[in-house]
């Protein structure tokens, strides 16, 4: 019993000390640019690991132009305007096929093209029917 307690304490101390040491070496290697990473990518990954992922149902859907419709999110997860959105639009639970699409492409070609821009989602249904009245459910989730 005492032996087990002793080895557990050594194990925990090893993990703590080595973690702290490796973290300080990592900072040194990054600051001295011996290891190079994209700092924005790192910050984004860190933010995504601590901030809860956004999800919701698109309810207030309005026609924009052509096949394009717009829905407001009421929140602002990182969009294509700020970098690269991690938002996926689902039609009856199935992801629409073309994220990060150009607005004109959504308007002219539709076919499930969409873009997350600022606080809104610009999207088209998969078969170019009107998503505000085609009876399907549209949801979003940050991946």
């Amino acid at each position, binding site marked *: 019993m005492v032996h087990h307690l002793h080895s557990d304490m050594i194990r925990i101390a090893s993990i703590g000390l080595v973690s702290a040491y*490796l973290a300080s070496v990592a900072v040194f290697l990054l600051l001295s640019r011996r*290891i190079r990473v994209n700092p924005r*990518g*790192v910050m984004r990954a860190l933010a995504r690991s601590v901030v809860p992922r956004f999800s919701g149902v698109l309810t207030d859907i309005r026609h924009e132009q052509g096949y394009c419709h717009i829905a407001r999110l009421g929140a602002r997860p990182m969009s294509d305007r700020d970098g690269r959105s991690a938002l996926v639009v689902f039609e009856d639970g199935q992801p629409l096929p073309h994220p990060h699409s150009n607005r004109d492409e959504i308007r002219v070609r539709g076919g499930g093209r969409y873009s997350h821009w600022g606080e809104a989602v610009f999207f088209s249904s998969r078969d170019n029917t009107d998503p505000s009245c085609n009876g399907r459910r549209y949801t979003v989730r940050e991946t």
Partner: protein
Amino acid sequence: MAVVKNRRLFDALACPICQASLTLRGDALRCSAAHAFPVVREIPRFVATDDYVDSFSFEWNTHKTTQLDTFRQDTSSEEIFRKKTGFGPDDLRGKLVLDAGVGAGRFTDVMARWGADVVGIDLSFAVEAAHHNFRDLENVLVAQADIAHLPFKPETFDVVVSIGVLHHTPDTPRYFGALVPYVKHGGTIAIWVYPAEGDFVTRKQWIPFTCRIPDRMFYEWCRWFVPLAHRHPNNPLLGCIYRIFPFSRQGLGLENDILDTFDGYSPRFHGIHAPAEVEQWFKDAGLTDIHNPGPWNTAMRGVRP
């Protein structure tokens, strides 16, 4: 005594100082010039310590069988061996082979299964693990020795292989050059060393710091961290850590990844090399038929003319 279980293998041994033949007298191998080398726990010892490779002594005695196909009941090591050397069973059956840097015997296991007579040497106490794994095989002999002072006569082996070893020596090309004289004329040497690209480059930056961590402590950390990474394969924070500190995720199981993460950061030396550099070592050694046998671009094979 088990050290002479196969006469052909035993006769391959020679005094590393004067290269005279050795005979077993008492508990030591002795040459005619009275140089003596102890046999401890049935393993001939041509070095007194494990010098700069203590981390390998630790890891291979902790993971004696983790990478051996015979114990894993798969062919993962065989596939790696084929890709890095281009050898198949027909190339090695009946051949006398030196496995320089045997470790726990991952590749000796493959070659012995294919019918080669294999001498496996290692500077580290990994020889204890290798001997444990092959003690019942008549076609394997394990000895503790340094590549820079090999206990053989020149031109002894049909084939010399050294996979993932030479970059852990103080001077990769010099240690490669030390192996070549032991290949018979017409024999083949095949090596693989770390390439100067990708994760190997990143790890090289860490080595001066991580090799100073006591083995037991770093291993305990690997045993904690790697399972955590396994449980959360898509975690963005761990993905971010991977870019800075590439840990193992080879798809060969948790124990393999713990071992391989420890292996990647604990050695004293971690050379990285370009394919052209490796090819040049072969040319400088006077080898012919030099070629890269597979998809690993720093794997190289050549024939001693």
